[in-house]
């Protein structure tokens, strides 16, 4: 600890006044937050990104609609799963697929789509709903798979956006291929 005398010599030491140090810090913090929020609001007013400020965060919906991809909600996917009316296509790589996936899902990374076209069309003709999914932030594989299959003549592939994470978070059943079941 410093003596009182040295404090006086160096008034710029923050330790000289801890309360003031904190107060000024908080005041600056508030000011910086306000500046950040103000610039952010101004930026989004000047260059609208198409995202609404509040409300429905299904930000990718409009993009996918342009590409002709139909999304399916988790609730709908879950009820089709329970009625055994859905065929799930896991578009991720085999590694992640092995660690866990929706029970009964087929592992089809988008480049493999053409090898599966006949099988999937057969499911389609049986009246099943084909649902592709991926995982994680903006993972495009589910959409890519749907597009690839559509190019090859499969008409009705729906996409469960961020499917794996949402499926797990909802506590729905999982299947693993490493001889463990969870």
């Amino acid at each position: 600890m410093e003596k009182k005398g040295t404090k006086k010599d160096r008034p710029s030491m923050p330790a000289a006044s801890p309360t003031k140090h904190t107060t000024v810090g908080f005041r600056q913090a508030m000011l910086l937050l306000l500046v950040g929020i103000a610039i952010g609001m101004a930026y989004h007013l000047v260059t609208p990104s198409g995202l609404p400020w509040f409300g429905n965060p299904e930000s990718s919906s409009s993009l996918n609609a342009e590409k002709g991809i139909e999304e399916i909600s988790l609730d709908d996917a879950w009820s089709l799963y329970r009625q055994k009316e859905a065929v799930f296509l896991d578009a991720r790589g085999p590694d992640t697929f092995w660690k866990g996936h929706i029970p009964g899902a087929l592992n089809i990374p988008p480049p493999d789509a053409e090898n599966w076209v006949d099988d999937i069309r057969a499911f389609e003709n049986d009246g099943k709903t084909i649902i592709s999914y991926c995982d994680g932030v903006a993972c495009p594989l589910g959409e890519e798979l749907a597009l690839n299959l559509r190019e090859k003549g499969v008409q009705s592939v729906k996409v469960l956006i961020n499917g794996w994470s949402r499926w797990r978070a909802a506590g729905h059943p999982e299947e693993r291929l490493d001889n463990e079941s969870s």
Partner: protein
Amino acid sequence: MNRRNVTKLLGHPAMILISRLLLGGIFLYAGIIKVADPSGFALAIRNYQLVPDGMVNVIAMLLPWIEIVIGAGLILGAGTHGAALVSAFLLGAFALALAINLARGLDISCGCFSTAPSTGSINWLYLIRDLSLLAMALHIYRFDRGMLAITGPASRGKTATD
């Protein structure tokens, strides 16, 4: 090395300046990347499943700018202590979000320095990285004395003495 020496080393102006520039640069970079892709960042936030759906977009649109402002503040020394406080608060919140989802076992991307789909899923290293940055923020908050700063809590005294 005794405690006084550690304090002396941590309080050395060069150490603080390094912390400031590094942390400021990191926040600036992280903010700029996310400003460019608000939709991707919104999806990243939504994947954490911790924020009410209605709040996701507004956070995705404003948080990057807050990061940019505190990043610039740390680098320039404009309101350094405030910037360090906000950084510490944000990094604390990020750590909590990461920890909760690691415990949940969700396979999600970090959304920290990229909104791109190809980035790997979160693991404990992300949490360690976040906590290291948090330590830097606290270091700056505790020891900064306004070296090469345009403003700061110490500037009143500084102009009189330096």
